[in-house]
């Protein structure tokens, strides 16, 4: 006899505050999960980058070496390396265990907004306010980037890397998709989208949920907005705090959300946590 197929679960929204971590590193400019979601990286305005355990909220390591506030960070797939970028125009590659600077990549003419490893952690892609995206080789100690993508006409605010594609979002209202396999550049003009949140003057993050069902975005009114990906309807408005929610990051596989507001990082989950843990 056959059992009926289990019904598809409605997507879980991260509505319950699990933990608040006071990072004690000034304003948290960005917060990121690592590749497997067990750890998180917080980029502080006091020039440090910190590694935390998400489940316990304990500080594991502090990486200091940037000359100005850290704006973004990413962990490699094997958790052995971290790259981070800063307003001091550099991208730094860190060794996770020793906390030492492995490489310091200079070349951007302005502060570097976004940084990302590629899948094998052989290349670092960094997008900067100087309208360029630079691809740094970290296999060899070459001081200059492999390639500079300077097609953007305004500050590059975010960079993402997939298996064979580079996605760059620029303030000129375009998303550029560099397809390495096809050797093509697709420029998409995007002038509208998910509306409702407030974003007038700051660089805010947005992301997709773990199952790509929802779009989440920071907002300057202290909420995290959550839209349905397909319908575009606002499905959740998560009150985080009174200040501007500046960064957020979604767990790669589970419904967990990190938000950064002022100097704190908050961990959100789909289900409330046990009281004893609180």
């Amino acid at each position, binding site marked *: 006899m056959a059992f009926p197929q289990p019904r598809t679960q409605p997507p879980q929204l991260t509505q319950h505050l699990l933990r608040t971590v006071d990072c004690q590193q000034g304003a948290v400019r960005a917060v990121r999960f690592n590749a497997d979601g067990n750890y998180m990286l917080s980029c502080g305005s006091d020039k440090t980058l910190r590694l935390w355990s998400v489940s316990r909220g304990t500080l594991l390591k502090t990486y200091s070496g940037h000359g100005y506030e850290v704006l973004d960070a990413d962990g490699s797939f094997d958790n052995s390396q971290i790259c981070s970028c800063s307003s001091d125009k550099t991208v730094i590659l860190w060794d996770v265990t020793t906390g030492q600077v492995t490489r310091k990549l200079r070349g951007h003419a302005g502060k570097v907004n976004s940084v990302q490893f590629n899948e094998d952690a052989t290349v670092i892609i960094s997008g900067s306010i100087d309208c360029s995206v630079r691809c740094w080789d970290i296999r060899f100690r070459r001081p200059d980037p492999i390639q500079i993508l300077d097609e953007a006409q305004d500050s590059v*605010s975010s960079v993402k890397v997939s*298996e064979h594609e580079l996605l760059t979002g620029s*303030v000129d*209202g375009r998303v550029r998709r560099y397809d390495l*396999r096809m050797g093509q550049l697709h420029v998409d003009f995007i002038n509208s989208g998910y509306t409702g949140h407030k974003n007038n003057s*700051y660089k805010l993050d947005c992301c997709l949920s773990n199952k790509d069902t929802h779009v989440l975005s920071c907002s300057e009114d202290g909420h995290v907005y959550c839209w349905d990906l397909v319908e575009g309807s606002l499905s959740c408005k998560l009150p985080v705090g009174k200040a501007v929610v500046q960064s957020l990051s979604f767990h790669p596989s*589970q419904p967990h959300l990190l938000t950064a507001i002022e100097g704190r990082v908050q961990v959100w989950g789909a289900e409330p946590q*046990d009281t004893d843990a609180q």
Partner: protein
Amino acid sequence: MASDGEEEQDFVTYGTPLEPLEEDAPVKKPVPIHEQTVKDEKGRYKRFHGAFTGGFSAGYFNTVGSKEGWTPSTFISSRQQKAAKVNARPEDFMDDEDFSEHGIAPSEITTTEDFASGPRDQIRDKARALSSLVAPIPGDNVLEDLISPARTSVGIELLRKMGWKEGQGVGPRAKRKPRTQKADGGPRVYGCALPPNGSEESEEEDDYVPENVTFAPKDVTPIDFTPKDDLHGLGYRGLDPQQALMGVSSTGHVDLFTLDSDRTSSLFGDNQMRHRRRAGVSGQAFGVGALEDDDEDIYHRDTLSNYDSVLGGEEPGDGLYGWTAPEQYNQKKKGSNTEASYLGKILEGFTLASKAPEAKSIFPPPDLPRDFRPMHYFRPVVDVANVSPIVAQALLVSGGQMSTESAEKGRHQLDASQRRSLLGESSLKGPTSVFDLLDSKDKERLEGIRRSAEERKTVAFAPEESRGAIVTASTAPAATTFSRNALSSRFQPPDSERLLSAWRSPTADTAQPFRPFEKNPEKQERYDLYISKLKQGRKDALESSLDPNMTEWERGRERDEFVRAAMLYKPSSSSLSCRFTRAKHQDDDNSVEVPRDQENDVDDKQAAVRMKMFGKLTRDTFEWHPDKLLCKRFNIPDPYPGSGLVGLPKVKRDKFSVFNFLTLSDSGLGDNGNQHAAPAAPLGTPKTAQPGKKSRWDIPAEAEPPKDPLGTFLSMARSEASAPQQGQSSETTSTPTLESKPEPVEGEEDNRPPMDLFKAIFASSSDEKSSSEEESEDEDNESGPEQTELVPHALLPPSSSAVPEVKPPVTYPDPAPPPPPPPLPQEPELEEEEFGPRLPPPSSSGPEHQSSISSWTQAEVHKKKSKEKHKAKKELRHKEKKVGLFLCHFLFMSRLSKCCLLSIFLPFSIRRKARITRAKTRRRRRKRREIRQWRPLAVQGTRKKIAAAAQTTVLRVSPRQSC
């Protein structure tokens, strides 16, 4: 929650976490060496003394005495108190420190012999005997065997009490029958197991086994895991010295590959061999003693027949058949069974697998096509500019295939430079010879030395000439005359060779050669001819390029000058280029590289976005070349193998155009730059027509091409979309009728003035200073616009030259215009007049435009530099007029505040300065805002809206500033 619980289990935390280290906490100073002291366990300082106790103090003040002095113990024994017998042990004379961990006799907890497995353990004995056999000195534990205390360990006693008897194995008693069955039936033998057809098993099968009788398990000889520390092959034991030397050889055969079973049996069971062994040294050299009975083998002869020559047992006894034995004989002999068992016995610990390994299926290689050649020929990437025209011609003729003869030569016949050209690499920078590194004085000195040496040879028959040559060497060419052949014989070869090599190098610059004889055009012409011939690599370059009509003296002088000039201004490849790198943009080059493909019009996209038609309408796709290394790092094959290009394909455009630095995004400058010619570019930049691309500027200018349904659709859509919202989107609705509709000043891109305004303002400002010269020419041109200055531009006759520019872009919702606006013939020469530099697409090329503000200042610097070059433009006055016109338009249309008007009316130079300073303050302000704690970072634009270019933002800021 469950996941949380799991995560809890993942980590173990001990104690309380340390406080994070303070950044600037003082570091603990290490104790310097001279303050480090050694203390003993009682906390007393240890002083370094001598050799005893490792040099530190010991005993009682480093003496063997005590507090009472060194008094010998007295022996007292009485009847009542018998003196105990004192056995002095070494420990009695040792210090306490000696028993410590680092002392000379550390005392530690060890297993007493009762509990250690004793020497009576027979199994272990056997193993030891085995190991002793393979030990470097065989039989070195003989003595130990002889003197062994009769003691059993606790373990053996325990076992005995449990019913174990010596010679038995340990384990539950079992029936023999089922066990054998199980062994037989179990085909699953993995790894090491006893060979299934061992002799013991077969024996037991023959036995009669009664019912309900159980047997103890057999005793098992433990496998001796001795490391293999010799270099012998597997299973090879080497000559047993007992056998080979001790007289066993008399029995005959020495088997090198002794079976394990044989050896163990000889070890355990019969000691006959040992009995036969003679103790002590024996051999032929010592003769035969009186007690020894056998004397037949006094003179030992060792023959090769004593040794095995074949692996796998003896040859058949008759020895009649060798390898030429008859077939059936061979087959019988090669019974795989026996051989296998033999092998399995030889390699201790190994056994033959019961299952044959699966045969690997081997797939045949693919069939090669008939005309396949196992070589790959690369099509060379040849830059025509770098190769001499002859080569280029040849390449063209051969269809780009690098000459086949070089390929036929094979790579070993090619030299480095040929291989380099085959691979399409550029030549290495750096001097080609040592001479290039010398400075000119040294060269001249060398030259002089060499020449004088030559002169000594020739002085016999050409005294006058040599004198002349010496004078030449002292750099007074005008005063000397020398014959043609004298020069060609002596002066030309070294220099011309060098020059040839220098000028022929691929890096020789072709763009802007030095022109030393500019004042004398004929001479310069001859010099150019000479240089061009040099580049082609002709040896007779000098002679053939001279004027044959000139006198000998003149020719000689010119020859000298040419050679000198060519030497002086030879391409920088040789001597200096290793120190310098080429400028990215040549200063005297009026063109700049910009991407070939441009994005489509923003308006089209906005219309599409408004209609929620994402996809094809909002997407531009370009050819993009990733770097080779990047592809490699991403594990992706290069999509354009063989292309040296990286990034977007580029074309050259005029450099000194303001519109290079205006951003595309604000008002859809788009492609229209391409339609404007560049009159001022002296080098005549190549114009690339861009078919199929449209902008809103093109739409009134061209007939609607039937092949572009997208364009018509879009314009329709745009007019539709703009109809309901004429009020706020003035970008599409700037009409003369708009005067009545006020607009909010802060509407971001909505009330952006049309592109024409910028063009008019900036293009004219760049040419301000050179305007006076050209005024007269412009008079007639500007008369038209002047009259109509205050007339709304839409009423202007289209014949007026100013009209196409004055018109704000495409989408007027004019009451009358048809949705596809009336075609205006493309008039490049007209527009040329209007705008001077053609409109290239916005910045994004080159690092110098990294921020639009800085690019502005740079642009102006460029402009100042190139004032003269723009002399040819005629539109200057004209422009200023137009500016006025535009201001009106601007006033009417975009409803900026009066302040803005004021700011625009300021003299341009002041405005420019103000603009820069304003931009600076703006930047500063922004920075301040960023620095403020708790405030997130501001972006340069907003994500939601199209970012404004810096220029326009400044314009927008200006009213606020001046208010």
